[in-house]
């Protein structure tokens, strides 16, 4: 038995990098033609969990909700963090879930993992639309303390607490690093700026040892994999999938052209009329709505 049981929730996402992504003529993502990969933020979460393995010899379980092919994301995450247990929650009824309904599945899955989970790690957000709600919503359903934007953490195994550093970035304020202490269990959403610090030779050597183990395990990931459908998971069908989703996507449309295509209009800096025109354009740019 390990002193620390950690879980990671991850997501299989389209690979948006040029050369792998494909778009339909209407601008929507061509999912069939686009390769899938472990979401970059999920990968960061896996790295954060791996820190617990190296430092505290934690047992790691990974869970994901998705189609059967999402097992590849579990393998990729296992390759990063040397997990002992892989969960795939896969059922057609889960399809179309919004964040609330996804959180319900993940919460139920985490409760089925081996050992009592002390820390759950999740990515900051997904790159294909989900904007970082699933993590905190799962946390709340689990009754775990939620810590967001975590850039560093350590665990006090004796006190059963976590001390985490989180990044607070607010419009118009300098960034703040907040150090926060919380009793286990906690749910950590990992900031993209997270970087594990292994400061001694011994830690680094043990890191290498686990990395090697991770490679061996992930080459043989099916051995660690458990697949659950809705029934096996024991979720209430009213709270998952489309039925359990308060929100719907009503429509998708093109954003009216916001960005100028950078074809410079060349104006003469010594001509007052030209400068007037320049300022007018600047004014127009500033008055229009921001599309980020």
């Amino acid at each position, binding site marked *: 038995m390990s002193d620390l049981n950690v879980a990671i929730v991850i997501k299989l996402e389209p690979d948006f990098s040029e050369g792998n992504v494909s778009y339909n003529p209407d601008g929507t993502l061509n999912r069939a033609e686009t390769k899938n990969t472990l979401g970059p933020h999920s990968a960061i979460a896996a790295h954060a969990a791996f820190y617990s393995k190296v430092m505290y010899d934690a047992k790691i379980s990974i869970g994901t909700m998705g189609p059967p092919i999402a097992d590849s994301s579990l393998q990729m995450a296992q390759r990063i963090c040397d997990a002992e247990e892989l969960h795939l929650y896969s059922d057609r009824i889960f399809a179309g879930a919004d964040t609330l309904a996804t959180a319900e599945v993940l919460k139920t899955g985490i409760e089925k993992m081996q050992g009592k989970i002390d820390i759950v790690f999740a990515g900051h957000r997904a790159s294909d639309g989900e904007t*970082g709600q699933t993590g*905190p919503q799962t946390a709340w359903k689990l009754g775990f303390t939620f810590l*967001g934007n975590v850039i560093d953490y350590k665990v006090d195994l004796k006190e059963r607490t976590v001390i985490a550093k989180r990044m607070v970035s607010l*419009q118009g304020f300098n960034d703040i690093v907040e150090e926060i202490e919380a009793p286990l269990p906690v749910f950590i959403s990992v900031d993209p700026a997270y970087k594990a610090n292994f400061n001694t030779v011994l830690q680094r050597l043990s890191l290498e040892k686990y990395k090697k183990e991770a490679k061996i395990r992930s080459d043989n990931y099916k051995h660690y994999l458990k697949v659950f459908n809705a029934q096996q998971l024991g979720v209430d069908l009213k709270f998952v999938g*489309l039925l359990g989703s308060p*929100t719907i996507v*009503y429509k998708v449309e093109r954003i009216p052209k916001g960005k100028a295509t950078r074809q410079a209009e060349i104006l003469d800096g010594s001509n007052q009329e030209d400068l007037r025109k320049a*300022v007018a354009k600047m004014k127009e740019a500033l008055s229009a709505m921001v*599309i980020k």
Partner: protein
Amino acid sequence: MSDNNYQHLYVVIEVQDDKIVPVSLEMLGEARRLIDSFNKKYQSNEKVVAILLGHNIKEICNTLIEYGADVIVYADSHELKNYRNNIYTKTISQIAQDEKLSAQISPSSKFKKPRYMFFAADSIGRHLSSTVLVALDSGLASDINKLEISDLKITHQHKTDGKPVTYEKTLEMYRPDFSGFLWTTILCLDNKNPQIERDYHPQSCSIIPGVFEPIAPDKGRKGPIIEYMPTFDQNDLRVKILSRQVIRSGVDFDSYKTVVSFGRGIKDAPEQNIKLVEQLAKTLNAEIGVSLPISKKPFVVSENVSSKYMISDRVIGTSGRRISPMLYVAVGISGAMQHVVGMQDSRFIVAINPDENSPIKDECDVFIKGRMEDVIPKLVEEIKQQSLAVNA
């Protein structure tokens, strides 16, 4: 359930170091506009309710009224001085469901939950909105940059059992999609299908900072300011903030809609030219950035100017910051790739440069040909004349 169960638009205000985070006022502005037209359209009298949590925040309440809130509900406790997810979530969801409170806002015996709810899409609101909405058992759309309220006829397999149903007073929440080309409109709808009937209110979203305009403050506005006395679970208080450390004392490009940057083009008279750039930035209410080579101190300038501008924090580019202001003015910057990477996402780019062949020409929307010494003074005059309304 009756429509009266849900009333008002609640806005969760954020305060940091006794100051209002600007997005809070932006949300109030949009809330004001939406509720004004809502009340007109539906001949009702719903309110914009600001929820404010913190410590020694009473004075801020008046400001929120000036910026468009009808009612303030605040909870003041040293435990709430800084955001902690658990006690913030509980306090806000209690406020949102407190019937006594709602009776003070407007007498309505039926109030159960807010009709709409706004949060900021930032490192507090994004997570807070998520947990509050689980606590309130409703839906949430994140990172919204456009909102409308309308009556929509919906046919949905689950929500309406495939039959057309008109949803009144529905908040259409527009989210710019991952591709950057698409807008996804998200609705939070009650299940009207008799078999799975279930209400989902409030309809809520988090809002991207910097999108909406605050209204002009009106000192004459008045409204009730109600204190809510929260109670805390002792176990929740075991989550402690041990320290808070400001990490960037430097340059805050994100709070400015405009950034003016200068590069090697200042070389003929560095000191004077930087003054010109300062002037331009001041007129545009812009932050000042530099292109890469500047930070290597290739020019002789006074220590004063050097320590202010020739610092890595100001560098925009591959090894510096990546920014996307609405307006970017590149002064005397040739447009090397190292720099372009840091600014190409700007909405509108103006370059001032004597050399029409410099690569920046292909990276900008307006290319003003000329030496900065000649162009900037005239440009500043022109900006003043057209009184370019720019706010930070």
